[in-house]
């Protein structure tokens, strides 16, 4: 075999986002004719690495070569011109346009209908996809839209195709078909990078497998030499966890709370056979899911991206309606969503105004701003929110202080409680509690959640970082493809269940 240079090489790539190191000295290469699977848990840096390759993220340091020659890729248009195509998790198709138009988008000169249709037909022949040139993209199934995305990349003569979690949105049969296609495409002399967290997929079709963990390469080798066990261990990274954060689930739940835990009164947050469809009613996001969070425990949800956790958390927090089943919850559930800037705060308003947001939908009559200022001040003091005053504008706070403020607000059941009533929230639902926070702020947030649990709150936490779930939770449930699985508190078993490999 001749030693042709790799189709795409990334050398010593590093990238930081504020306090977070996303990639640390990562080198990655894919040969022509190969499928190279890029594995890792959520947040391990897989997508970021490939965004660097596609020009969507500019690396802090490192170099790129294609077929041996250095290339400078500063924008997606550079990557496209260099022969790299990427199919993102969220498609970049224009729904109101036809397949042919979407594929033609970005060209120059005249748009010849005959040529457009012929191009689609050529692509259909070359790929074996059933592509309908005149079909509107919005009428297509997700799988069909994905095939259009791939065809679009190939229409620009991509020799290196990056697929970001392509099977996450597909039904099993469709996924298999796609993977078979990927294999054939590589066999024709093209290079494919397959970003995935599914071990089976990687083992089934990849030539090489690289595993990223916390922004670093922890494994890279031929697929033939790898086993599911070994890859899972690499992804989950047994050794890096400090022992004192090992989950103590049995001890915790088994302590003095067990006796009262069975009592119905203490079931604070529960889902009974809940089903949620997606917004178009085409797919099911949550299937007959049941889950109970008792007072005084932290339940952690472990799940890979898009397994239904978004819907489950919001259904339990009363933020979305369920299509079947029943939700049991107190009137006020504290909810800390992942996208705080969008969903949790009014960026251009004062901290007092932001505190008032809690429960504002049901509030009546006059707002006592004096009391709210007092409450806001005590929230700030209790949670050590660093801001000049209660009148400070939310936007001017650091990310950590914003998060602490939101947490403080949501952990209080009633900002303006009736005299004598407890002011601690009975139930808290929290999503990626420490995303974007530094180590210190992370530790503080964790301590707050534990304190809430100890004072009798029911806490439900989801984090895309399995370590965080394990560190916080008394009990872990795994969500896979919209269904809930109770899994023993064993990191390895949980990791495998998340990946559907249990």
């Amino acid at each position, binding site marked *: 075999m001749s030693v042709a240079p790799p189709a795409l090489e990334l050398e010593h790539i590093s990238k930081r986002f504020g306090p977070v190191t996303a990639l640390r000295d990562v080198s990655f290469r894919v040969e022509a004719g190969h499928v190279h699977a890029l594995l890792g848990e959520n947040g391990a840096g897989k997508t970021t690495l490939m965004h660097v390759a596609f020009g969507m993220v500019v690396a802090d340091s490192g170099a790129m070569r294609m077929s041996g020659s250095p290339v400078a890729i500063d924008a997606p248009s550079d990557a496209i011109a260099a022969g790299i195509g990427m199919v993102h998790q969220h498609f970049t198709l224009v729904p109101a346009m036809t397949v042919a138009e979407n594929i033609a988008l970005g060209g120059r000169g005249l748009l010849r209908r005959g040529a457009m249709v012929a191009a689609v037909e050529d692509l259909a022949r070359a790929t074996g996809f059933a592509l309908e040139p005149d079909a509107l993209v919005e009428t297509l199934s997700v799988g069909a839209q994905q095939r259009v995305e791939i065809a679009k990349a190939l229409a620009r003569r991509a020799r290196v195709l990056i697929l970001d979690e392509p099977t996450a949105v597909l039904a099993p049969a469709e996924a298999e078909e796609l993977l078979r296609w990927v294999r054939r495409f590589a066999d024709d002399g093209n290079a494919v990078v397959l970003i995935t967290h599914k071990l089976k997929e990687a083992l089934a079709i990849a030539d090489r497998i690289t595993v990223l963990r916390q922004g670093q390469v922890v494994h890279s080798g031929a697929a033939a030499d790898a086993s599911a066990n070994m890859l899972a261990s690499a992804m989950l990274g047994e050794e890096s966890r400090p022992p004192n954060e090992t989950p103590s689930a049995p001890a915790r739940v088994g302590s003095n709370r067990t006796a009262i835990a069975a009592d119905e009164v203490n079931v604070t947050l529960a889902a009974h056979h809940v089903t949620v469809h997606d917004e178009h009613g085409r797919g099911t996001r949550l299937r007959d899911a049941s889950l109970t969070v008792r007072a005084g425990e932290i339940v952690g949800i472990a799940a890979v991206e898009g397994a239904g956790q978004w819907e489950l958390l919001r259904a339990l927090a009363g933020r979305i309606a369920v299509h079947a089943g029943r939700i049991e919850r107190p009137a006020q559930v504290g909810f800390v969503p992942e996208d705080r800037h969008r969903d949790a705060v009014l960026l251009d308003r004062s901290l007092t105004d932001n505190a008032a947001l809690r429960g504002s939908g049901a509030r009546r009559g006059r*707002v006592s701003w004096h009391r709210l200022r007092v409450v806001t001040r005590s929230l700030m003091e209790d949670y050590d929110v660093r801001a000049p005053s209660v009148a400070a504008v939310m936007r001017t706070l650091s990310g950590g202080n914003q998060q602490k403020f939101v947490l403080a607000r949501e952990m209080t059941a009633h900002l303006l409680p009736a005299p004598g009533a407890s002011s601690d929230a009975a139930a808290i639902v929290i999503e990626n509690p420490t995303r974007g926070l530094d180590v210190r702020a992370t530790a503080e947030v964790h301590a707050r959640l534990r304190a809430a649990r100890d004072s009798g709150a029911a806490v439900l936490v989801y984090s895309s970082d399995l370590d965080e779930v394990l560190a916080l939770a008394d009990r872990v449930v795994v969500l896979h493809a919209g269904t809930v699985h109770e899994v023993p508190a064993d990191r390895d078993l949980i990791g495998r269940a998340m990946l559907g490999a249990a």
Partner: protein
Amino acid sequence: MRASRGPAWTVFLALGSLMAIVGATALLLLIAGYDVPRALGALWTGSVGSWYALTSATLVRAIPLMLTGCAIAVAFRAGVWNIGAEGQLLAGGAGATAVALLVPGAGTIAIVLSLATGAAAGGVWAGIAAGLRARFGVLEVISTIMLNFVALYAVSFLVRGPLQEPTHAYPQSSSLADAVHLARIPGAGRLHAGIALAVVIVLAAGWVMRHTAAGYRLMAVGESPAAAASAGMIDVRRVTTLAFITSGALAGLAGAVEVLGVTFALYEDLSPGYGYTAIAVALLAGLDPWRVIGTSLLFAALEAGAGAMQRDAGVPSTLVSVIEAFLILGVVAAQALRARRASMVTGGELRRESAA
């Protein structure tokens, strides 16, 4: 659109804007080659320089501007781009006229009924656009502009048809009976009781926005519909629809007050564009109803003074529109720049993080 920073800041802001406006006017006059002191003198005497000018010119004009300015403030606060205050004002004027003419004049009751009908008519007119937005997602910018035209033609039809005065000689309704006129303020020329009504309503609106849960929801929905829905569990669609209709009712009331207090009959040109000037009034007030009192007086004075400026110094009165336009552009540009600077400090970094 920040929260207020105390009375000293408000006074400073008001004086600053006033000086900026006078300065800009002087500059424009200078560039155009007019006699600046004479023109500014005319501006002064025509607006606030005499008791008559102050009451009969400036304050009378301030009434509809105050109410429509408040209408715009309420809508924009909730993120509703109601460009239709002009049409809602006409609808209110028409509704009030119809009731005032048809209900046999029982003094106060007829007045109250007319004003209420005017407000209701304005609310209904806005309600059409509100319904289109809530039900079909129609951009209210487009629908309210269209409804402005429909209102204009509808009034034009009414004053030539069902509501035309009996001789059918003029495109206007019959004059209203004296019993349904809003009372004149004694010793204040043409100034009528509508000023008290407007001030009370604007004060009340400002109080509601500042001190009630409903006012808070309005602001929260306007600031961030996503956060209002998620963190506040606010029914966003309901709040925007209510704000829209309330806005229309305020503008409709302005039309009713204008008919009952100034014109005493329905005319096609009932409003010289109050509904549009209101946008400048509300924006300069930072969408705060209480400050609308100040900015509506300012614009009323400018427009009253402009007439005098034209008469006495030959300066085109349309110069006022230029000043208003620059004020609006200045305000939105400053806001845009501030938001951009702020998002460079924090937002950009975090957006990238969550994208990664």
